[in-house]
């Protein structure tokens, strides 16, 4: 096959490689999760049947769950089913894993989405202000320092104490019903979830904007009489967007992992809380499915960042 050496060809190859790499990552991760759980100490059978079960009952159960087959065989079986959208049955609740995960996924998705919006809008917004003016920088670095230094659970408790208990503006726990009610229930958790990463994104944005505004090409544009607003959009922010988007993407990926803790603290019934419950009850089919969802979310976000970088930086497009 003849290689296409135009920039567009290089970009297309790069995109194809990025997407293929993402697929490979998910596949590898699925095996690692599967094998890791199989090797983990503790036995789902004792969890299911209790410590007093007879050896015979245990053996029966092992056979029914297919736990005696070789690992690779079990993985292949699980993968085939999973690719058809069937993640098996929960060992504890006897429900389809997909039925268990589906509604909780919507809750978690909303929570992470709200937190991501806060990280991106407030984090980047504060960062731009901080990067552009001296006084702004002082205010922003104070806020950022606070956001990074205060541990998430302390912030969460403070938020609950002030806005839920004292002021009564928000509920203290639960996930709500209907979109608006859910948004209302998830506001405090989303704020708690976004603080650390929001601070990180602000800080990085401020640094990137400050650095960009000192660049020679910014001076070139100013020296040609180009209005300040245009210089800001076409040069400073345009070029700061590359590192800022990378950081935001990593932050959003981090939110996916962070939601596990926050759901627990605010008693939000999402996949994070489900994961923790399932781990302690050794409900392997659920743990595998939820872990995989987290991995997929992570990989999707990081792949999007890679693709955005290709779109934003022409030099990225050229190197293949």
């Amino acid at each position, binding site marked *: 096959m003849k290689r296409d050496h135009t*920039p567009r060809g290089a970009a297309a190859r790069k995109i194809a490689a990025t997407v293929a790499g993402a697929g490979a990552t998910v596949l590898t991760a699925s095996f690692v999760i599967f094998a890791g759980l199989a090797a983990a100490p503790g036995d789902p059978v004792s969890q299911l049947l209790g410590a007093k079960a007879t050896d015979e009952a245990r053996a029966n159960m092992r056979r029914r769950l297919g736990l005696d087959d070789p690992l690779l065989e079990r993985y292949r079986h699980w993968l085939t089913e999973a690719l058809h959208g069937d993640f098996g049955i929960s060992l504890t609740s006897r429900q389809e894993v997909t039925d268990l995960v589906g509604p909780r996924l919507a809750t978690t998705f909303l929570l992470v989405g709200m937190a991501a919006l806060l990280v991106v809008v407030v984090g980047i917004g504060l960062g731009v202000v901080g990067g552009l003016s001296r006084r702004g920088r002082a205010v922003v670095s104070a806020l950022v320092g606070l956001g990074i230094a205060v541990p998430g659970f302390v912030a969460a408790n403070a938020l609950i104490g002030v806005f839920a208990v004292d002021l009564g503006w928000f509920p203290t726990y639960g996930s709500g019903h209907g979109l608006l009610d859910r948004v209302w229930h998830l506001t405090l958790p989303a704020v708690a979830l976004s603080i650390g990463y929001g601070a990180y994104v602000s800080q990085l944005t401020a640094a990137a904007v400050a650095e960009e505004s000192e660049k*020679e*090409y910014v001076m070139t544009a*100013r*020296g040609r009489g*180009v209005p300040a607003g*245009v210089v800001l959009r076409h040069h400073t922010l345009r070029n700061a967007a590359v590192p800022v988007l990378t950081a935001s993407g990593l932050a959003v990926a981090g939110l996916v992992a962070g939601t596990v803790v926050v759901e627990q603290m605010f008693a939000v019934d999402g996949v994070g809380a489900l994961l923790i419950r399932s781990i302690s009850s050794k409900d392997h089919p659920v743990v595998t499915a939820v872990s995989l969802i987290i991995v997929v979310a992570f990989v999707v976000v990081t792949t999007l960042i890679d693709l955005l970088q290709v779109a934003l930086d022409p030099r990225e497009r050229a190197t293949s």
Partner: protein
Amino acid sequence: MTPAPLFRIQDLHVRLRHRGGERTLVREVSLSVRSGQSVGLVGESGSGKSVSIKAAMRLLPRGTRAEGRIAFDGGDVLTLGRRELARYRSREVALIHQDPRAHINPTRTVGAFLTEGVVHTGQMNRAEATERACALMADVGITDAARRLHQYPHQLSGGLLQRVMIVAALLPSPRLIFADEPTTALDVTVQSDVMAILLEQIRERQVSMLFVTHDLDLAAAVTDRLAVMYAGSIVETGPSAEISARPLHPYTAGLLQCRPSTAEVKRLTAIPGRPVAAHEAGTGCSFAPRCPFAVERCRAERPHDRSIEGRTVACHRVEEIADRLEERAS
């Protein structure tokens, strides 16, 4: 009476806030460029050439302060309001930077770079600007202009990119071009081509030019007048041909001796010692520590500009040493 020059710097001082105090970058600089004239500003690296140009464009970095008077066509550049400043920068003057790679945004196309100046200052619409840019690109020897417009800076060689910068400078038809070491950052093999193209355009369009370089011979060859700068001050000004034939300031003479001679084999005698920055200069003549003719007075007292043989020279001993300088230079 001769008409007032198009561009004139008088008694320019540039100071930088530094550790609670102030540090002088440029001291008492005066020079002028008449309409249609090319003037060379020459000096070693760090002498304050770029800072002077930035002051003239009002592009000094934060923490610096320019004092004195910079006049363009009678108007006072240092006190221009926002709109007049935009007008001055976008239509009257243009700046060709030393390193095109750093001074052109790598994430935007060549076409976007070329047209942004005239489009965003309301001089042309995009279509007109693009058309004119293509014509100018052909003039400066860029083939395939239409395709280049869609390329990114990293896809062009340094020489080509500097031609793009020249086109950008010419696009609004400015009256004065500041060229700050326009070929220094380029590969030696393309330096003379780019220089020739710049000169051709300047002459054809009768644009005035303030040409900044560390290369006295090059400056003498392409300009009408020279101003030689050392440690933030101008030490000698005069007609280019006369200065290069008969330097009157020991520093100018030293610069001329540093060059490899064309006709005969001459030893290269670099000026001993290292150049000092304006803020490092003591109370006396800032060149005194490196000057073979320095006497007690030179170290104690800063020399004033003296008019001699139609030139301005800042040297206490200019009359005494003129003949000896000539001897050394030949």
